[in-house]
């Protein structure tokens, strides 16, 4: 069997996508149909056609609002990932620091973080810092847990092999632990990406006058449900794009890895 054959077999087949796409189209069509047949008022539940039109009324700066939210989410995510990775390194390399930091990390994780949002604004004021901090809190935890697992959960034989060759702990870290943690890190990043969007929206709910979160809240006050749905659609697309981005980056950086 040649390598090309092995590769090809792992490539997803186009046929596999047909059913989910069909299911999605049928769902949208049913939604439109029900809204029209039962004459559901748009302020209660707008049909897809109305949502599609809302982007072209010119009353809302969709691109601008989307960029605000996306900027916050990405900025917070980058910092959250850096902080998460640093903490993962620290708790893996030092058993003592692991024990000292763990209660705080776990406490922060079991706490519904959205509940912290209003308090963050009391402490830090209505600033970008408090918004970003909320996103960091929402994203760093999955990175810490996944990365530290990956750094620790190595093939013991490989460690023995390197030790038998008189390799230092530093060499074992660079040659075994770090590369081993990469797939785990990417799993954490997948969770972190959705956390970043949640964080951005909640932050805007609480303290902003711009962004998609603010737009949704504002739509609620003005009964412009269609605009809120317009924001949902954008958020869904953003979430999908970010998630797909993580998967593509993972494939690019780890051609050697296939889940399961």
């Amino acid at each position: 069997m040649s390598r090309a054959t092995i590769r090809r077999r792992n490539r997803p087949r186009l046929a596999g996508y047909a059913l989910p796409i069909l299911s999605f189209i049928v769902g949208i069509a049913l939604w439109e149909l029900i809204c029209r047949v039962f004459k559901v008022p748009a302020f209660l539940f707008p049909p897809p056609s109305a949502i599609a039109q809302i982007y072209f009324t010119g009353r809302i700066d969709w691109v601008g609002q989307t960029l605000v939210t996306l900027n916050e989410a990405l900025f917070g995510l980058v910092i959250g990932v850096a902080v998460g990775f640093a903490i993962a390194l620290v708790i893996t390399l030092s058993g003592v620091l692991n024990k000292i930091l763990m209660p705080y990390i776990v406490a922060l994780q079991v706490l519904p973080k959205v509940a912290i949002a209003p308090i963050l604004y009391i402490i830090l004021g209505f600033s970008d810092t408090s918004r970003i901090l909320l996103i960091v809190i929402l994203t760093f935890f999955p990175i810490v847990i996944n990365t530290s697992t990956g750094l620790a959960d190595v093939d013991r034989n490989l460690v023995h092999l390197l030790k038998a060759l008189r390799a230092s702990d530093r060499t074992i870290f660079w040659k075994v632990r770090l590369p081993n943690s990469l797939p785990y890190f990417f799993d954490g990043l997948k969770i972190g990406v959705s956390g970043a969007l949640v964080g951005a929206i909640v932050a805007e709910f609480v303290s902003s006058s711009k962004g998609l979160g603010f737009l949704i809240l504002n739509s609620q006050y003005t009964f412009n449900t269609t605009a809120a749905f317009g924001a949902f659609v954008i958020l869904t697309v953003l979430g999908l794009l970010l998630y797909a981005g993580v998967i593509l980056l993972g494939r690019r950086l780890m051609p050697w890895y296939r889940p399961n």
Partner: protein
Amino acid sequence: MTATVAVEKVGMTYTTVKGDEVVALQDISLSIEKEETVAIVGPSGCGKSTLLRLIAGVEKQTAGRIERATDEGQFVVGYVFQDSSLMRWRTVYDNIKLPLEVLNKRNYDKIDELIQMIGMKGFEKAYPIELSGGMQRRVSIARAFVHEPSIVLMDEPFTGVDELTKEGLQHELGTMIRRRHATAMLVTHDIEEAVFLSDRIFVMSRRPGRIVEEVPVNLPADRDPSMRSKLEFFEAAKRVRERLLAMHAMSVDLEAGAGAP
């Protein structure tokens, strides 16, 4: 002949988390001569792998001494594990390169030579995930030889490989050991594998692991699959099997006796 490794009255006692002491190895003495292959055969959990780790210097024995010959400079081991244990993030070429890298050796031409030898030319850039189980074992064998170690330690190298593939791999491994004039130590529970590959076989007892018998294999150094049907092959296998069976029967008796009222 000079001994590459001399194990003298070595013992290994572990302390469990609960604080109990477990004697894994007791009073082990054996030597491995240069360019010789010895096998250790024994039941599961008899401490065979522990002995390999002690010889490799990954762990330190709690009793006795291990002498390692350093006449060619450094004492370096090659390691073959049960499940290949390749780095999945490295290609075939880079996996084999690992020991050279760690030891700061630059003779990378050895890598191509070994890839040729294990019949994997064209697969240099393949990742382990793209290889069959048998191919992965070959790569792990090449990795164990590339840096010309003082001794190659093999821990159940072909467990979980189907019978025919296994016989093929054993032949390749034997050829590799002889062609490279390597010294090797094999730990296995597969009696035929031990006979086919080694010059001497040590039979080990259940925990605490002790050496209960040394069985010489009277076959020529150059071995091929046809030797599996030679009288000497059967004789050696029979002796090892009988010794293992006797111990097994004894432990079954003991268990039955303990259960009696």
